[in-house]
């Protein structure tokens, strides 16, 4: 049993040389056949390890593949078309042992191309299923501060001076709980003050700092 030759060859003829209904159709068929025979020879040599023949074969099929991809996916941008063409070339390279030089080359090539284009579409659908296109990124909070992408630092010198102006108890409480990030228990043990007193001192100290830094 032969692998389906004539029907497949007609169906999979590359986009450049189709079987049109105009007067030049017979000439097109001849050209297609000649082109296929040349590619078969090149592929046979490529399978034997001839680098130059392989490079020539790949260079000859690139325009065919670009047109085939563009015809199947007309909406694709040129870089996406090029990505698919490269994917097809890599697949051809991987599958080159499956080619039988007794059969036409172009149906074999176009079967790989169709498979890669369909796979590309599946990948695209998978990706876009997890993406939502929006004109403006949604806000997480009504205020501007939480939505600021980077942390904005104020004037450290002004902060240092404002801290210096605080009563000792408040300054110590802020240093321990806010700057050194101690827990209330640890701060209570260190300072000897009660937890309640520390909470009050921090609250008052922060209020005083905001006031002196002009954010109250």
């Amino acid at each position, binding site marked *: 049993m032969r692998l389906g030759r004539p029907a497949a060859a007609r169906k999979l003829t590359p986009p450049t040389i189709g079987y049109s209904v105009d007067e030049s159709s017979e000439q097109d068929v001849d050209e297609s056949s000649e082109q296929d025979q040349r590619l078969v020879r090149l592929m046979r040599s490529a*399978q*034997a390890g001839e680098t130059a023949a392989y490079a020539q074969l790949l260079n000859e099929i690139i325009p065919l593949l670009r047109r085939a991809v563009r015809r199947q996916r007309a909406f694709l941008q040129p870089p996406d078309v090029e990505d698919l063409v490269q994917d097809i070339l*890599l697949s051809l390279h991987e*599958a080159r*042992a*499956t080619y*039988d030089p007794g059969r036409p080359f172009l149906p074999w090539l176009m079967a790989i191309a169709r498979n890669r284009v369909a796979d590309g579409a599946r990948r695209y659908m998978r990706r876009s299923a997890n993406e939502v296109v929006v004109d403006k990124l949604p806000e997480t909070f009504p205020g501007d501060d939480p939505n600021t992408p980077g942390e904005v630092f104020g004037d450290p010198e002004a902060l240092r001076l404002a801290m210096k102006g605080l009563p000792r108890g408040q300054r110590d409480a802020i240093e321990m709980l806010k700057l050194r990030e101690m827990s209330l228990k640890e701060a209570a043990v260190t300072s000897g003050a009660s937890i309640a007193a520390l909470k009050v001192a921090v609250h008052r100290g922060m209020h005083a700092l905001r006031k002196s830094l002009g954010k109250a």
Partner: protein
Amino acid sequence: METNDLVARLAVDAAPVRRLPSPAVRVVIWLAISAPVVLAVMVLMSSGVPLLLVLFDRQFLIEETAILATALTAAFAAFWSVIPGAERKFLLLPLVPLAVWLTSLGEGCVRDWFSVGVDGLQLRLDGDCVVPAALMAIIPTAAMLVMLRRGAPLVPRATLALGVLAVAALGNFGLRLFHLGDVSVMVLFWHFGSVLLLSLIAASLGRSVLHWRHRVRLART
């Protein structure tokens, strides 16, 4: 990477390749690897039931022929499916012997029902054949996977389902030869059912097992 650079790199990497033999030749190669394993397990696990007694049973012969034909056509279709440009209609080949097998089993169930009554359609748990079936499947499965991975994974789900169908049917062919005397409903449920179930599981795993290797390499880089 520019396409021209890719062409240059592929051309440099173009070592000579050994062409894949035709699907029919590959079936023979796979059978040459798998059949001795099935035969060896049969001989080792045989319970001593004389085969001659069933060799004249018409239903048994039809079913065994259909199972073997399922194994061969499924293997052929699996190897066929990894060739770009090959016509897809040949992937349906195993459906014919599968239908014959199912019809014969259905006919057997009806006959058992008429002759024994409802008792002839009772299912029971039978784990005797699990170990020999597993032993029979290991090497044919490994051989099938290695051979399929040499082709192009164009329809990986169908390819793997067909490959596993071939392995399961071949194992079943051997299993029936020493696991005699089951009523048709048991064979239908456990043997035919397990063959179909394994094929369905294989179909679901197809894309993970058979894939273009360059895509995996690209994903890792």
